[in-house]
């Protein structure tokens, strides 16, 4: 962290000066780790039409938090991660075994998870308000240990992308064609949805449940407007996510609104810009 602090002291901002405002320095580093994560995952969420699924995962993560809190864990986050993984696995299994359309299956899972979460968190007449912070999120409260965990996850996602992106893409384009080329489509989809589950759950506390899905949809949606190849698609999605992340955090610092919401709004502007420049 010392290296990061001294790196920042080069910047001409008042919060970047040595010996103060550590929460802001941590938040900036967290944003620089979280936004690439979303920028990368976003490409396949949009490509394989899973934006509704990632939205449902956000809801299940909240339920996991409620279960964790109910069981008296100090760190309900890990309970939430486990719950989200179970949710993702169960969803993949049911989707494979049923003739129902995938958005219907997601609807079933999503509503069940939300209802269970509200049920558990309000059991015995308890107040829901302590979960309000989850809905909005607060990146300024992130601590260095958590940034380390997120950085580790980012590394794992990059490795996953290096090893199995091709298979994942073909599975999304045409499962039968992918299978004929020896790709285990079910496992590709499962690993990918578990990756989304972990990322969504771990970043929910900092970004906010209400806007987290926009981070999984907007970067790639904007990139699709102008990209012509997979490389451009990833580059534009990644750059857009990181730039919006930094701009959003600064807006949050100087003007006071939630960082998650600011980042999302910058991404929405980015989408509008690329829409105007879109390929014909």
């Amino acid at each position: 962290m010392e290296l990061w602090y001294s790196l920042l002291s080069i910047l001409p901002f008042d919060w970047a000066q040595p010996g103060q405002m550590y929460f802001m320095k941590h938040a900036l580093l967290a944003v620089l780790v979280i936004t690439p994560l979303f920028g990368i995952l976003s490409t396949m969420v949009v490509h394989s039409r899973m934006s509704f699924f990632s939205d449902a995962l956000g809801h299940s993560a909240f339920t996991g938090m409620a279960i964790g809190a109910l069981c008296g864990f100090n760190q309900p986050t890990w309970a939430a991660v486990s719950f989200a993984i179970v949710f993702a696995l169960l969803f993949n299994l049911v989707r494979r075994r049923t003739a129902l359309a995938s958005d219907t299956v997601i609807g079933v899972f999503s509503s069940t998870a939300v209802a269970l979460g509200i049920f558990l968190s309000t059991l015995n007449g308890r107040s829901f308000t302590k979960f309000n912070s989850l809905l909005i999120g607060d990146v300024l409260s992130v601590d260095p240990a958590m940034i380390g965990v997120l950085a580790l996850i980012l590394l794992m996602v990059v490795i996953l992308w290096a090893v199995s992106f091709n298979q994942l893409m073909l599975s999304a384009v045409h499962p039968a064609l992918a299978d004929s080329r020896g790709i285990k489509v079910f496992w590709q989809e499962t690993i990918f949805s578990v990756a989304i589950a972990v990322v969504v759950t771990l970043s929910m506390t900092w970004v906010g449940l209400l806007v987290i899905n926009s981070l999984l949809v907007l970067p790639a949606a904007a990139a699709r407007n102008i990209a012509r190849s997979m490389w451009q698609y990833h580059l534009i999605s990644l750059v857009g996510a990181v730039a919006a992340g930094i701009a959003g955090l600064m807006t949050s610092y100087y003007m006071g609104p939630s960082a998650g919401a600011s980042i999302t709004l910058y991404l929405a502007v980015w989408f509008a810009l690329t829409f105007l420049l879109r390929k014909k």
Partner: protein
Amino acid sequence: MRKIKHGKLAAGCADACCLKLDGLSVNLEGDQILEDVSFHLHCGEIAALIGPNGAGKSTLFRSILGQTSYKGTITFSPAGGPAIRLADGAVVGGSRPLVGYVPQSPSFDRGDPVSVLDFFTAATAKWPVWLPVPQKYRERAAASLRRVHGEDLLDRAMGALSGGQLQRVLLALALEPVPHILILDEPLSGVDIEGEHQLLEMLDELRTQYDLSIFLSTHDFATLGSFADKVILLNRRVLKAGTPDEVLASPEFYETFHLRMGRGGER
């Protein structure tokens, strides 16, 4: 258009290179999709599978591709090699023969940021295509596309290709590596006359060049005689198999398609 006839092998597989289906049955959740399907397909031969919608054509292909479970056996005898027997997922006597597959209608949106080069590299190489594709893979993809006269398509978006161009790209992919058996699901639908002519000519070149078995499904009966060595009429069971002339003149063909038409049904 047709050049070789493997007439001398017509009696059976014997020692020749051949794909043999024996008593193939598929039952999916209580529905009997295929029942006791048996036939031979020699290398270098083009066979057309015809039948009404829901006849089990795609399921038959899926069985050969090993994507569905079935009863009965599928045997592949490579030229000069020992027979490889595939029975419900298990492979006996060698490794699974390579089956090239050209699917019916892959879903590409117009806006999909997947270039032909991305698609090709993703399917044939380990290089992750979210990074810029190096020259080496570019040349490799171009060489594959040259086989189907499509090297100029390399930088086009998959979603912007015409039906015929997409077929050619998928065909080039199915030939990488060159398979023992090539399966094409409805390759002629959504392709204009010019594209159809081009595709059939290409298939004819391929089977002479690589001596592979080509197995395709089609609804286009008018052109059958010009390219198919063998036609298999399927409706859950094999109703009739033989040369295009034999099948098209058979009462089974008439019954399967014309009587339905008389009742105001399809086709």
